[in-house]
């Protein structure tokens, strides 16, 4: 019997085994006939241990948080374009409110949108379905993970309404600004913000343990290492990466929290502390974190483009080894965030070299994806549009990162809008574009209905045009020296020129277009739930195992537990009448 974990399952044949009753030696698949799901509303949708429900809970929470984070962006971008005028629907953005909005926009979009959507949402929904088992190895741990995540979101939202308001020391939370209420004027907001991040990390640690264990131990019979779909590999590698990088940040967060509330001075230089120490602990986590969210996004796009180009993923093993290598290498690039923080120039040289080197494997992965598209029978469904857009937009983010990775250039560009534009060209493709690719692709599996393609395409073009209209101008203002931590440029004469201000207005208009386009998505999402055309089990004629389950999959996922006979990307195999060859179909 597993460690206190599997007691949800009451079928006797399954008591002693792994959750996946796929192998013959674990108990006959017939046991699934007796696999009863929960019956009441609360146990089905709120306190469920079903991986699909938990995945969707993560996703819906992530979507709500994305709307909140987007609204914050709306408020502060309106302030930047039309300074010191009340923002419609929000009110006046004062300097403190501005700082708080920017800080929490960043924190929410990374920790409460990108992470729950990409890793926890898609990971929970997809991993058991794609490896052909009926649930995670530790279903109750999984439920606890979501509950902690939910608590963390509540704690974060609560930090806005406490005396002093929400924390405004940037999502990087550098001390000494963050370590004392006398500096940051948010004696309650700062500790609550930090506590929210810490709780959220524990939630994802529990989830990551589940993902790794499940993918290693619960695969369907016949599914060997190289038969695992790329998105599952990527989520597992991202989980390992998160596991290995989160520890130092949690250590730093505890020290910072003690500084804030217990009167210690770990990071206060006047009392013997070291503020640079926080930056190292933070970025030791912070840089791998980029890959923690990038890898699942790359995985989603791999699934989407192979299905809609009807081609085998080019160089599966190369991509996999490259991913693992990139993940390991991402631990030795962190100080490129600190080139102007007073680190030793010799160390800066070293980190410049490692930073430029890490662009090679990522470039290689992009080339493999382009080679997958080459000569394919491409069909531009909405998910494919988002998938291809991911490759194009992320490339822009990656290429501009090379400028910033060179310490000589970074000294000039640091803390300008060039940096803002750069990391939005990485994070928006990851957390927005790839997530939409995944939602449009797996929506039929999640809810058993198809989404509307016309509304989907309106949504796609609105998002892409809006996104580029926001951030292309910011490269220009950043290169012209526009400092990023200023709430109103009217107070800085040399930055308050008409040329720069008009570009800021363009960026804000782009933001409005992008936000407006999301209404097409929301309408499409909700309307398709009710009125969408019913989806067959495998509407995209895809190979991976989740499409062998009914749409939507019932509790326990598969009517008959699948056996795997081949890899996940056997599209357009010569000599076959069908252009796809599902993993579970015998030859």
């Amino acid at each position, binding site marked *: 019997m597993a460690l206190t974990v599997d007691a949800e399952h009451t079928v006797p044949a399954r008591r002693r085994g792994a959750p996946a009753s796929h192998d013959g030696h674990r108990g006959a698949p017939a046991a699934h006939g007796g696999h009863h799901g929960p019956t009441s509303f609360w146990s089905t949708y709120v306190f469920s241990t079903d991986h699909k429900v938990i995945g969707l809970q993560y996703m819906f929470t992530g979507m709500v948080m994305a709307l909140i984070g987007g609204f914050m962006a709306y408020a502060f971008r309106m302030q930047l374009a039309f300074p010191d005028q009340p923002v419609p629907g929000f009110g006046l953005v004062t300097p403190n409110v501005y700082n708080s909005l920017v800080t929490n926009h960043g924190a929410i979009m990374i920790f409460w949108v990108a992470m729950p959507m990409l890793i926890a949402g898609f990971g929970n929904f997809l991993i058991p379905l794609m490896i052909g088992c009926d649930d995670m190895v530790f279903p109750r741990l999984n439920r606890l993970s979501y509950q902690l995540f939910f608590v963390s979101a509540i704690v974060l939202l609560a930090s806005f309404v406490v005396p002093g308001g929400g924390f405004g020391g940037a999502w990087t939370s550098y001390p000494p600004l963050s370590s004392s209420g006398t500096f940051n004027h948010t004696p309650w907001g700062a500790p609550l913000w930090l506590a929210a991040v810490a709780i959220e990390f524990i939630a994802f640690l529990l989830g990551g343990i589940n993902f790794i264990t499940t993918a290693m131990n619960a695969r369907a019979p016949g599914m060997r290492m190289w038969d695992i779909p790329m998105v599952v590999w990527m989520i597992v590698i991202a989980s390992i990466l998160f596991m290995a990088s*989160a*520890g*130092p940040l949690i250590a730093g967060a505890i020290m910072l929290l003690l500084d804030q509330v217990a009167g*210690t001075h770990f990071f206060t230089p006047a*009392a013997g502390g070291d503020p640079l120490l926080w930056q190292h602990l933070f970025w030791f986590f912070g840089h791998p974190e980029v890959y923690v969210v990038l890898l699942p996004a790359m995985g989603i796009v791999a699934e989407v483009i192979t299905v809609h180009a009807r081609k085998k993923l080019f160089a599966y093993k190369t991509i996999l080894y490259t991913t693992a290598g990139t993940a390991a290498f991402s631990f030795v690039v962190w100080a490129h965030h600190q080139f102007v923080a007073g680190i030793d120039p010799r160390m800066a040289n070293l980190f410049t070299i490692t930073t430029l080197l890490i662009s090679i494997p990522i470039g290689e992965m992009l080339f493999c994806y382009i080679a997958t598209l080459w000569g394919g029978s491409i069909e531009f469904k909405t998910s494919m549009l988002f998938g291809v857009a991911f490759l194009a937009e992320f490339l822009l983010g990656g290429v501009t990162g090379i400028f910033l990775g060179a310490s000589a250039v970074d000294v000039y560009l640091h803390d300008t809008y060039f940096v803002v534009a750069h990391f939005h060209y990485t994070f928006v493709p990851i957390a927005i574009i790839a997530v939409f690719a995944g939602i449009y692709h797996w929506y039929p599996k999640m809810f058993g209905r198809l989404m509307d393609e016309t509304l989907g395409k309106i949504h796609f073009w609105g998002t892409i045009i809006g996104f580029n209209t926001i951030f292309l101008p910011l490269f220009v203002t950043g290169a012209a020296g526009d400092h990023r931590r200023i709430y109103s440029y009217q107070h800085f004469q040399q930055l308050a020129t008409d040329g720069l201000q008009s570009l800021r207005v363009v960026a804000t208009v782009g933001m409005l277009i992008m936000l407006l386009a999301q209404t097409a998505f929301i309408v499409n999402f909700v309307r398709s739930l009710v009125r969408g055309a019913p989806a067959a089990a495998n509407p995209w004629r895809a190979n991976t195992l989740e499409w062998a389950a009914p749409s939507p999959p019932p509790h326990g996922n598969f009517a008959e537990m699948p056996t795997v006979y081949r890899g996940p990307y*056997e599209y357009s195999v010569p000599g076959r009448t069908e252009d796809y060859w599902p993993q579970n179909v015998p030859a």
Partner: protein
Amino acid sequence: MRNRPVRPAGTSRVASVMNAANGLAVTRPRPARRPVVPSAVLAVLVLVAAEAMFFAGLTSAFLVGKAGAGPLLWPPLDQPRLPVATTAVNTLVLLASGVALAIGQRAFARGRARSARRAVTLSLGLGVAFVVVQGSEWVRLVGYGLTMTSSTFGSFFYLLVGAHALHAVGALVALGWLARSLRQGHGSRDVLGAVGAFWYFVVGLWPVLYVLVYVW
């Protein structure tokens, strides 16, 4: 192994060969899989890896703090020295607890349930003794004026040793639960392995912290 480039049917002279090869590949029987590491143990090992990185963060912060403070402030002249000798004995107690659990695990694997139960209980007792002695030393140190806020030295001392103590208490709860289920006759090798993996981590980490904080 199946990463051949896809060619449109009929355009390549190797297509039919490839197809035959594909056919061979898919009809080869695939063995049923068994986990290399049981799920419960694997889960704890992943947790231990994350914990190891957590303590790596703490100890590197400690080293940075110590290097920045200089010898006169580490510890400050007016603050008490740490009880090096008592803690050395206590370290041996903790190591003995780890050895006892290893003996218990071995006995369980060989089917000697009774001696396994005894060894686990002994391990638990030694672990509790370690935590109690640590706690009483803390009380004495606080009495002498070494607190979390008295100096950076004090902050780091209580941070590192306290983090380890919390892990030890958590692991002891698990050990107690394990001893109870062994007494009731429903322990399993996997559970023993999972609890053991975490306790060995806590035990093995302590000498490192002892040398770093007390001795070096």
